[in-house]
């Protein structure tokens, strides 16, 4: 028996996506295979996550999904249903930068800035799992985030400084 065209195409089209982004509940209609990166940037106007390579190699679209670092260019929107998402826009409280953001500024960890949001989310993910990482652990944790400006030394220093700052609090 062949499925009538109308039934087959019924499942296509947009779906409801309910999730929490930077602490705010969102309810939007999206195509289920839309990339989470595009949903964040185009539907929610959160342009912090950047598109670099679009294939999971560069990390500039990194965000946290349920606390896990993911490349948002590789997440179909439907898989973010009910998830808690954190983007770079969610780190600062009002105009008060997070310790990590301040450390990136102070150490020269941001130059052109394209990699910075992903780099900081990668660092956040690391510090959540390992509050006192050594330099090798920082480098391994950020190995999926490419930077073409800094040479990485300032970034590693920034993460180390943020870790020291947090542990002395």
């Amino acid at each position, binding site marked *: 028996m062949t499925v009538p065209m109308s039934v087959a195409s019924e*499942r*296509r*089209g947009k779906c409801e996506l309910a999730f929490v982004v930077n602490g705010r509940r969102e309810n939007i209609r999206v*195509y*289920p*295979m*839309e*990339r989470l990166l595009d949903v964040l940037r185009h539907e929610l106007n959160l342009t912090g996550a950047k598109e670099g390579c*679009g*294939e*999971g*190699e560069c*990390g500039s679209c*990194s965000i946290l999904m349920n606390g*896990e*670092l*993911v*490349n948002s*260019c*590789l*997440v*179909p929107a*439907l*898989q973010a*249903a009910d998830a808690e998402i954190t983007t770079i826009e969610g780190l600062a409280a009002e105009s008060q930068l997070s310790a990590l953001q301040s450390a990136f500024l102070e150490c020269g960890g941001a130059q052109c800035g394209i990699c910075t949001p992903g780099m900081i989310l*990668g660092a956040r*993910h*690391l510090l959540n799992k390992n509050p006192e990482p050594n330099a090798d652990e920082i480098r*391994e*944790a*950020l*190995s*999926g*985030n*490419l930077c073409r400006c800094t040479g990485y030394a300032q970034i590693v220093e920034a993460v180390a400084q943020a870790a020291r700052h947090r542990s002395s609090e």
Partner: protein
Amino acid sequence: MRSDPADYELIAPGKLQTVVQLLAEEPGKWLPIAGGTDIMVQYSAGKLPARKLVSIWNLPELRTVEISPNEITIGAACTYTQLREHNIIASEFPMLASAARWTGGIANQNRGTLGGNIVNASPAADSLPALLAYEAELILVSIRGERRVPYLGFHTGYKKMNLAPDELIRAIGLRRQFSGYLHYARKVGARNAQAISKVCVAALGRLRRHNGLDALGNMIEDVRIAVGSVAPIPIRLTDVERTVAGKSIEPELVQLARKAAAAAIQPIDDIRSTARYRAAVTGNFVAEFLQQLREQGKTA
């Protein structure tokens, strides 16, 4: 050309049973998607032939590692991060934990899955030589029931595998029988992180137990050597294994094994490396493995 999301269907039934029913209703029409680290790359490039996808990400049945006295079974949608962080995998199957560490960056490890690495069937997949060396078994599920097959023989040619259109890998089984073995895993890529292998190897070896000054203490009792990125599928170097099994590890034997390794593979020139380089590295890995095994015999 980038794909238009309006052309694709994706559903998330949330239950393994429903996924399996769907695969049976329209065999070959539905593509299971877990963490998307391969599928979404093809999709973004406009190269994904499937139009209907079914999400198996976060299905609890596929995310657990079950431990029994003789075996561990790893749910097919367990991520590399899970493999890296699991105590028993790290201590008893360290080559699999290493492969998980080598695969992509942290963001990819949080989404990429062991089952995905198997069905994506890249000749360069880092976890597959470890599965060959540990003689893993795959537990395949369909509406017809479950079957268990050795991973060896599952891949039959480039991107070809013994998986029926209505079947899904549910879990990967590993027997807990490798204490006392040397677990040797190495990868060569363009850089340490986030690079696809030029050659990757996983080898297991055990020497005959020492009895005081027994001259046979240096003799190889059991050995398995598997290599990726040197043939259309990851392969066991059975000729090399036969060459060295039962022998004592002397420089001549190492040379013989190195030559046998180069003869047993079918490497190609491609964007990542050359056939010549791959053959040389494979031989060096085999030689280094045997030397380390000999050293282990001295200290045992």
